[in-house]
C-alpha cells in the first residue's frame, strides 16, 4: 500500500490539496532538498525546465526563507515580493551582463561554452588565440626565413667574417701564448721569448720540474719576493719565499 495515499486525505481543505498529477513540481521539491534521484532526474532536463518548474523553485525557496526567518522582520528584503517572472528576468540579466563584460586577466578560463563567450572579449595578447594570418602558409615561410637570416648574421659577426680589423688587444687576449706571437708584439717581455717548455732543475730538495717563465718572473721581481713570509721562524712551518737561493 502506498503510504502517500493514506496521508493525502488528511489534508483538511481543498485549497491545500495540490494537484495529484503535478509530478514536475514534486520533482522540483525533492530536487531542492538534494534528493539524489531528483537531482539526477532534473540534471537531465535542466536546460528544458518549464516556467512552472521555475515558479515552483522560486516560491518554495521563498517559503523556506520566510519559515526560517521566523518573524516578518527577519526575512524582509527589497525584492521579497518579486514574482518568479521578475526573478527569472533578473537572473537572466545577471548572466548576460557577466557574459558581456570583459573577463579579468586573473580569472581562470576553462573550455566551458559559457566562459568561452567571455574569453572572446579578451585582448588577443592575453588570450593566446591564433593570429589572423595563422592559416596563410607563406607568412610562416617568411617567419622561418627571417629567423634563419638572423641566426646567420649573428654567427657571421661572431666568427669575424665581416671584413673589419678587430681590436689588437682582443687579438692578443685571444691568441694562444706561444713564442711566435709574443715576439711579434715586440718582445717587451723577454722571458716569454725563452723556451716555454718546463725544465728539470736540480735543487737542494732534489730535481724538480719548473716553468722557465716562472723562474724569469722570480728573478725580475726579486725585490718583492725576497724575504720569507714568516718573520719568526716556526719549526713546524715552512717559510715560503720567492728567493731561489733560500728555497
Amino acid at each position, binding site marked *: 500500500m502506498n503510504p502517500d495515499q493514506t*496521508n493525502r486525505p488528511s489534508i483538511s481543505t481543498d485549497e491545500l490539496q495540490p494537484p495529484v498529477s503535478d509530478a514536475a513540481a514534486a520533482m522540483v521539491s525533492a530536487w531542492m532538498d538534494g534528493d539524489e534521484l531528483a*537531482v539526477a532526474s532534473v540534471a537531465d532536463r535542466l536546460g528544458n525546465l518549464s516556467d512552472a518548474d521555475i515558479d515552483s523553485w522560486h516560491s518554495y525557496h521563498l*517559503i523556506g526563507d520566510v519559515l526560517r526567518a521566523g518573524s516578518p*522582520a527577519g526575512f524582509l528584503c527589497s525584492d521579497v515580493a518579486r514574482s518568479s517572472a521578475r526573478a*527569472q528576468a533578473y537572473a537572466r540579466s545577471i548572466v548576460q551582463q557577466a557574459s558581456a563584460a570583459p573577463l579579468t586577466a586573473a580569472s581562470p578560463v576553462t573550455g566551458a561554452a*559559457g566562459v568561452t563567450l567571455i574569453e572572446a572579449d579578451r585582448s588577443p595578447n592575453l588570450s593566446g588565440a591564433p593570429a589572423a594570418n595563422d592559416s596563410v602558409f607563406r607568412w610562416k615561410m617568411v617567419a622561418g626565413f627571417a629567423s634563419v637570416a638572423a641566426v646567420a648574421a649573428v654567427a657571421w659577426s661572431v666568427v669575424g667574417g665581416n671584413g673589419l680589423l678587430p681590436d689588437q688587444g682582443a687579438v692578443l687576449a685571444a691568441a694562444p701564448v706561444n713564442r711566435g706571437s709574443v715576439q711579434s708584439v715586440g718582445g717587451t717581455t723577454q722571458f716569454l721569448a725563452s723556451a716555454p717548455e718546463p725544465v728539470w732543475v736540480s735543487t737542494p730538495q732534489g730535481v724538480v720540474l719548473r716553468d722557465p717563465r716562472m723562474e724569469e718572473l722570480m728573478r725580475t721581481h726579486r725585490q718583492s719576493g725576497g724575504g720569507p713570509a714568516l718573520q719568526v721562524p716556526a719549526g713546524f712551518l715552512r717559510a715560503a719565499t720567492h728567493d731561489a737561493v733560500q728555497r
Partner: protein
Amino acid sequence: MNPLPAKYTTTDTDAMLVQRATAGEARAFELLVIKYQRRVERLIGRMVRDVDLVPDIAQETFIRAYRALPQFRGDAQFYTWLYRIAVNTAKKHLMDLKRDPVMTLSSLESDDDDETSGNGLAQRLGATDDETPEAVLASKEIAQAVNEAMDALPEELRQAITLREIEGLSYDDIAQALDCPIGTVRSRIFRAREAISNRIKPMLDRQAGKRW
C-alpha cells in the same frame, strides 16, 4: 522500506548547479540567483545604509560570482563562498563611498551564512534600514499568509516541512524522526510547500506590478 540511498543534502543541488553553470549552462546559474537573491540582498542591506545601493551591490556580487565560478573549488558550500563575495563587494562599495557600515563586519562574520542566525541578527537590529515601508508591509502580509497556511496544514505535513526547512534535517533523518518511509517524507514536504505556495502566489502576483 527505503530503496533510496540516504544522501539528501542541499549542497548536492548547489554543487550540481555550480558544476553545470561552470560548464556553460546559464540556466543553472539563474536558478542559483533565484535561490540566493533574497539572502544576498538582506545581507547587503545590513551592511549599507543606503537602500538604493542594495540592488547594485547584489547585482555586482552575482556578476563577480559568475565570473569566478571556475575558481570555486567546492571546499565550502556555495553560499558560504557567495557570502564572502557579497561581503567583499559591499566593503568595496563602502570604501568607495566613504560610508560606514550599519554594523561591524566582525559581527556579521560571526553570524556566517545561516538563516537562523540571520534571524537573531535581524532581531537585534530591529527594523533594518534597507526596507521601504511598502516592502515591510508586503513582507508582513506574505509572512502572515505563510504562517496561516502552516497553521492550516495537517499535523504530519507541518511536522515534515518544519523539520526540513527550519531544522534543516535530511529526508533520512526526517523519516527516522517521523517513523515513516522517505517517500512519504518527500511527498509530505512537497504537499506542504504546494499548499503554502497556493496561498501566497496570488499575493506575489499582485505585488509583482509594484516596484520595491
